[in-house]
């Protein structure tokens, strides 16, 4: 074999070894285990904190509200729909006495016209009938501008919860 070919082969060998060493150092250990990605990333994605809980964890303590809610139209609604994410509340609120709950554990108590209007403000796309297996229900549509308009003179806009019980509307 000519001399220059031998030298060239030597150079190639050095490059290949260098590539393999660098690949070993730079490649994350779990890369390529399950495909062209880091297999550890699947586990890392499970580590993110949760904020929402499940409906059962609310009714363990708030039993009276549950029995109240079960009779009304809002029986299929989960508590967190209106009250916001409640995992922290459900885990730690039990340690405090009634009335001593710190603000960080308190949940939303919506009841203004705009809060109820999120579902109940009249909208052409919202008038639809919800079928479930037993009965047929419909999300009540209300024109907030017409329905019991706020008294402007008194400067106290009437909230929905002044007249309606949100747990049993």
């Amino acid at each position, binding site marked *: 074999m000519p001399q220059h070919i031998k030298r060239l082969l030597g150079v190639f060998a050095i490059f290949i070894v260098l590539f393999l060493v660098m690949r070993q150092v730079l490649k994350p250990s779990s890369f390529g285990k399950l*495909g062209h*990605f880091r297999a550890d990333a699947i586990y890392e994605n499970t580590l993110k904190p949760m904020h929402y809980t499940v409906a059962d964890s609310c009714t363990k303590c708030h039993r009276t509200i549950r029995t109240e809610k079960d009779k009304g139209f809002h029986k299929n609604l989960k508590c967190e729909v209106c009250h916001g994410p409640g995992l922290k509340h459900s885990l730690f609120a039990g340690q405090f006495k009634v009335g001593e709950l710190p603000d960080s554990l308190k949940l939303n108590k919506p009841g203004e016209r705009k809060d109820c209007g999120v579902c109940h403000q009249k*909208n052409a796309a919202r008038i639809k009938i919800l079928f479930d297996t037993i009965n047929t229900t419909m999300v009540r549509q209300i024109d907030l501008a017409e329905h019991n308009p706020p008294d402007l003179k008194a400067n106290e806009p009437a909230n929905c919860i002044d007249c309606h019980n949100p747990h049993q509307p």
Partner: protein
Amino acid sequence: MNEDSTQLSRRNFFKAGTVLASGVAIASALTPYDGLLFAAEAPGAKGKWYGIGIDITKCIGCGKCANACKQENNVPSDPFYFRSWVEQYTIKNDGSILVESPNGGVDGFKQSVPDAEIYKSFFVPKMCNHCAKSPCTQVCPVGATFETEEGIVLVDENYCIGCRYCVQACPYGCRYIHPEKGTADKCTLCFHRLKHGLQPACFEICPTEARIFGDLNDPGSKINYFLKNHTCMVVKPHLNTGSKLFYNALSPEVR
């Protein structure tokens, strides 16, 4: 130079070809190539294979799903970062189509067109389709986004270089660059909740149960019941993305 070495006779060509082909066959039998295995077996043939159903006839556009997603996943509250959002489609009597999504529907919707002008109007909740042949994972130059065995498309935040290829590749616009992390971010189908046996936040929260989630491989699952009993369609079927987000009563206007 010898003439034989430069000119390959037919006999020698077949000889060399046979040796090469049998060599490849033997080598692939010894160490099967992953790519061939993947092609032989459909993804998700074993184990769980998650699918999503959205019933447009039931969606009342309250935007609770978009709101829940932002809070559960710490998505920036600015009105242009969304993993899940709701659009209101209004088709007017003159045939023009109006698509609205004020703040992704997080604060609810207000009807902007008077009733008399509306031919029809409906809400379309949007989110990652978790495609089986997802364009976004195919374009990633570093392998920072991938599909899990359960059919969930995830992002590896520690490996993403923020090149924005995947944001452009997604035909459904379901990805964004996280302003603080500088990496791609998208719906994970609340992967951290699934591992605890819980539903994703948007499915948990939907007040009218317009969102259905379940295992497509399980014949008794909610999603299979939903698909059996409704006429379902995916968005942009012509792109052949293998979308697993099925809409009931999807209008052709939805893009």
